């Protein structure tokens, strides 16, 4: 049973269409993350749900209530803004109390609710100081508290962690997720940070240019990206993409050199059909050294250029033919500049995309994994 449902939402600012036919929902107790590059329309989407913007067309439902025309304050939404937007001239207590006071909640009830939330978020010692004296993480918590204290129907968060330093961001990520697991309030969370999206989401939505490219569980999107953009947007380092020619004998070859090409399994050949050029993609962590006959996969020889040390693992940057590629290894031994390495990627870890549409060419034996594809795709 979806709690928040967006039906065919369109939004234009003058001539510029920022949202195109958005269909999505946030289920009961679900944490949905909308992720995309800046300017993709994700914040506008959130503001429409909040009631700070109204859609040009389309419907917004909260349970069985049509709220498209309902003003922001009557939607009972808790919103956490990017810069927290705390009332700077009020104490933390008053910040939390203000909304309830505006609704004429009884003072004793206000006090009770604030005490509860303050305890939950561990901000009791801060109640009587002003936001100016708080650290970034504390402000963040107060902002969450202000959204929480009114027992909202849903939570909206607009890049709430982007003003924090890296370490605090990681901690708040876990804290927010834990809070969600306790409260189970439907949450729509907007971010441009794919790590945040992957780690926090029950389901995630990837947006670009005002459209939903793909929505689904983080694993689905990671392992079965529907487009080249999604494939490269998720994951760090991003997926390697190599443009390959399809030879008449249904082998594939890198553009330029490598005339003999690489033989590909029959089922993939079927998928490629009559296409001449396709994108071939593989994740850096799926690249393994060739061990004779052990795995059947995409075998190729790459030249190492630089090695980045991350402690637990190494990111190796090199080239396969002319194409730059990156792979991940835990073994530093023997990795020096300009050596050649024989590598392989198991066939079931290789992604194929149409060169013209940039869409995924679905392999038959994986059709069983359900993938929801949203928008106009």
């Amino acid at each position, binding site marked *: 049973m979806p709690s928040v449902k967006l039906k065919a939402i369109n939004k234009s600012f003058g001539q510029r269409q920022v949202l195109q036919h958005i269909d999505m929902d946030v289920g009961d107790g679900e944490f949905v993350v909308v992720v995309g590059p800046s300017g993709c329309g994700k914040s506008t989407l959130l503001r429409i749900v909040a009631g*700070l913007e109204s859609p040009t067309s389309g419907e917004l439902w909260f349970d069985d209530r049509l709220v498209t025309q309902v003003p922001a*304050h*009557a939607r009972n*939404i808790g919103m956490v803004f990017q810069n927290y937007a705390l*009332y700077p001239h009020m104490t933390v207590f008053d910040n939390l109390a*203000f909304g309830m006071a505006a609704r004429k909640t009884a003072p004793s009830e206000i006090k009770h609710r604030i005490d509860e939330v303050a305890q939950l978020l561990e901000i009791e010692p801060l109640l009587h100081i002003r936001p100016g004296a708080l650290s970034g993480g504390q402000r963040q918590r107060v902002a969450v508290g202000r959204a929480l204290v009114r027992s909202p129907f849903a939570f909206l968060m607009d890049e709430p962690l982007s003003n924090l330093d890296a370490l605090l961001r990681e901690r708040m990520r876990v804290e927010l997720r834990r809070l969600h697991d306790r409260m189970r309030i439907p949450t729509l969370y907007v971010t441009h940070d794919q790590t945040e999206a992957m780690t926090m989401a029950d389901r995630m939505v990837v947006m670009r240019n005002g459209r939903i490219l793909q929505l689904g569980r983080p694993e689905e999107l990671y392992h079965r990206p529907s487009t080249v953009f999604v494939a490269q947007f998720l994951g760090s380092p991003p997926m390697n993409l190599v443009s390959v020619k399809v030879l008449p004998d249904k082998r594939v070859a890198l553009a330029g050199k490598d005339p003999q090409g690489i033989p590909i399994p029959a089922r993939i050949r079927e998928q490629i059909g009559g296409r001449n050029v396709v994108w071939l993609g593989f994740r850096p962590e799926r690249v393994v050294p060739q061990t004779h006959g052990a795995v059947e996969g995409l075998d190729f020889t790459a030249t190492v250029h630089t090695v980045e040390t991350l402690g637990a693992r190494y990111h190796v940057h090199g080239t396969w033919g002319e194409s730059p590629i990156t792979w991940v290894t835990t073994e530093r031994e023997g990795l020096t500049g300009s050596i050649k390495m024989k590598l392989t990627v198991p066939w079931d870890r290789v992604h194929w995309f149409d060169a013209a549409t940039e869409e995924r060419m679905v392999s038959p034996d994986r059709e069983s994994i359900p993938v929801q594809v949203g928008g106009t795709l």
Partner: protein
Amino acid sequence: MNRRVPLSEDARVNSATGGGLLPWLSWWNAYALRETLVGYGLILPSLLVFLVFYYGPAIFLMYIAFFHWNIFASQSTFVGLHNFSVLIHQPVFWQSLLNTGYYVVLVVPVTTLLALALALLLRETRNLRGGGLSQALVFLPHVTPVVATSIIWVWIFDPTFGLANAVLHFLHLPQLGWLSSVHWALPSVMIYTVWHSVGLYTVLFLAGLSTLPKQVLEAAQMDGVRGWMLFRRIILPLISPITFFVIVLATINTMQTFSQIYTLTGGPHGGAGGPAFSTTTDSLLIYQTAFLYLHFSLSSAMSLVLFALILTLTLVQKLIADRMVFYR
């Protein structure tokens, strides 16, 4: 010593070894001295103008307020507080203080509130057609010369042919003598002053309103805070530094009002400040005492009194503001 050291450290090292050009600069240093000299050199021209035309006369004024000083005589005699005691026994001086107080107490709040209201209105309409034009129209009176527009307002206030009485007639209200009436002359000046100065304060308030953080206003919107409560609890506290600035500026400006009183109440109505001293404010009396009756010492004493009053008022305002103004 090949190590590159900053100039200041260099000077210190040199002086310590006695090898520098200016060994006595060990506690200061050559670089700081140069900085200081260049700095003072740059502000010297304007400082000179200030000293000669502003601080100089001000200090001289403080001097002659305690002397019997005549512009034609080379001798001046010390009279102590004599000038002040003469002032105390002059009814017109008390009248002028009263007029100034009446004027300030009405003009400052009215101008401030009107400016705030106009700024809120202009902010709401800024995106509508003609929004920019309205802003310009509100600000326009302030850029007009006081003397020129005062003469226009003398005509507006003309009891027989003026626009002011025409409007009252149209509204079926009793007509007034305006500048020729003892009761209405000072209010007429107030009306002119509000008209002339409200634009400046409106622009200041507009600037303040434009710095309101957008997301805080949106948070308030989501909290369901609207209308008067939004204004009273969010907007007003957040622009309080601007409000304080406007009130202080308006107070100082109105306490020093001179040109419009001189122009509006002079001319066809005889000497300025009338009728019957009803528009004689402090600054006008200071001017008249000095340049009409040539009692420079007496007028200097008056200036000191006005100065003390403005200073006291500003300090009181500052004290109040420290408790009420919220600085982000």
